[in-house]
């Protein structure tokens, strides 16, 4: 069983578009949406929720004003400026609990927060594990880890070949949680200077965590010169470019129709995505052969 995470560095390059197409093309997959604070995969796969669980990202401090003498020990100890006028700001509070230890009146307690939910759902393409982080909640990396773990367990139970993971943008903790332990990452980039810059940082991140990477150049024809620079950069880094997808307005039409680019006729885009899936699955499953 293999785990493939689709990341990008830069947002908006087409991760979810490609994940949804792969979900259709992979015959035996579990799907997972790890972009927990801005999840979109469900808009294409239309999951029917079978199981829902609440998730706690941590605790927040709470000051009992009846016991508080306003001595200021907590304010002095707090490194996150979370206590103002002897009220804890739940958004700034990182849940470290140091204030509960320094308070001479034992006036501070930690309260566990429900910071979101995760779901196991059925879709037309297989079981999907996804989540919704609560509004203005933090610790998304921990929720991503929960989603990853559950998807892996289900894939093993259902004897699936692959978990396909729609990753978040960036390179920070939710991305790290989406890629650690994966067998491969597919980096979706675009032929813009921003796309190239961000691709390098996300490739550096994959390398930092020793995860093999492949690259897809999405909308490659909007700037062939930059596409060539991306190819050259990948070549120098020893990273294979497995897909070159042209720009086509039909991709947006597919999204509006709640179809992936592998189900909706997007012309050359559909053909290239199929070819790319074959390249990716060959590379992924060839790993186990010697």
């Amino acid at each position, binding site marked *: 069983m293999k785990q493939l995470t689709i990341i*990008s*560095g*830069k*947002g*908006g*390059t087409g991760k*979810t578009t490609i994940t949804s197409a792969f979900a259709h093309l992979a015959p035996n997959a579990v799907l997972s949406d790890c*972009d*927990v*604070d*801005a999840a*979109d995969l469900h808009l294409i796969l239309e999951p029917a929720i079978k199981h829902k669980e609440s998730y706690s990202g*941590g*605790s927040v401090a709470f000051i009992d004003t009846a016991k508080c003498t306003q001595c200021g020990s907590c304010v002095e*100890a707090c*490194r*996150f400026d979370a206590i103002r006028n002897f009220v804890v700001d739940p*958004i700034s509070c*990182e*849940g*470290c*609990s*140091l204030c509960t*230890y*320094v308070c001479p009146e034992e006036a501070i307690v930690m309260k566990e927060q429900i910071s979101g939910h995760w779901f196991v759902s059925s879709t037309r393409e297989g079981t999907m594990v996804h989540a919704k*982080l609560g*509004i*203005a*909640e*933090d*610790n*998304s990396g921990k929720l991503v880890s929960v989603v990853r773990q559950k998807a892996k367990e289900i894939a093993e139970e259902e004897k699936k070949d692959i978990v396909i993971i729609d990753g*978040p*943008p*960036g*390179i*920070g*903790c*939710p*991305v*790290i949680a989406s890629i650690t332990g994966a067998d491969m990452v597919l980096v979706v980039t*675009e032929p*813009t*200077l*921003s796309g190239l*810059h*961000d691709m390098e*940082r*996300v490739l*550096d*991140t994959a390398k*930092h*965590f020793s995860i093999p990477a492949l690259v897809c150049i999405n909308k490659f024809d*909007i*700037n062939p010169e*930059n596409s060539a620079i991306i190819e050259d950069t990948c070549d120098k880094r020893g990273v294979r470019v497995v897909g070159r997808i042209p720009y086509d*307005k039909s991709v*947006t039409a597919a*999204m*509006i129709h709640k179809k992936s680019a592998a189900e909706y006729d997007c012309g050359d885009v559909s053909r290239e995505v199929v070819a790319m899936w074959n390249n990716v699955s060959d590379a992924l499953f060839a790993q186990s052969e010697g």
Partner: protein
Amino acid sequence: MKIAVASGKGGTGKTTVSVSLALSLDNVQFLDCDVEEPNASIFLKPEINEKFLVEIPVPEVNEEKCDYCRKCAQLCAFNALVVLAEKVLFFPEMCHGCGGCSYICPQQAITEKNREIGVVERGRAGDIDFIQGILNIGEPMAPPIIKKERSLIDPSKTVILDAPPGTSCPVIETIRATDFCILVTEPTPFGLNDLKLAVETVREINVPFGVVINQHGIGDDAVEHYCNREAVPILMRIAWDRRIAEGYSKGIPMVTVLPELKNDFRNIFSSIQTTLQQCSG
């Protein structure tokens, strides 16, 4: 005035809009708060003349004094410390630098040392006071770098903060306690879905906001309908234009490709000023 530019969905045009706004106004300080993938410098091309290391204070355990009582690991809310029979394991990427472990240690066996997680750079892009943060590769936590950038805010200027994508902690750290948040969206189902999450987020943290619809014309009108239903002000509609996309791909700002748009960005600023005066008046 502090104006944040956020979105929810990645790739809608936050940097495009924030850079164009900065180039259309006077007396501007620009903060690129997308410290995981900072891109504004590609368009503003600043000359950097100051660098600040961003560090987190992390524990250093003196195992000669340590008696493996485990109080530090029990206090640690982030699983950064594991105490085995005769060994203390520390996981630096998990540490938030709260100081709890060094406080609680009965043997005073824990001191703190600084660990670098990234850098903040400052310089000038024409008349713009430019600041960006860069998270080191492999580091999970963006907010401390954004906090450092924000500590350099010059309140005498119009401060524009370019936020990262998403709605979780790096975005909150960027947009909290700003005067106004511009939410940039695209007229597609993904754009609308993430806009709704972004709207809930700015409402939760009590920042007045308005929407810019970028790439207007590429999808459907569901975003417009949503904004009308929710009484969310639409500050500007930027029509999809191949020239803008091509310019973007080469690192050319939108208002350099289409200078007539500077008026529209100045109008956004005026309408924000009017909105804020009405709020306080």
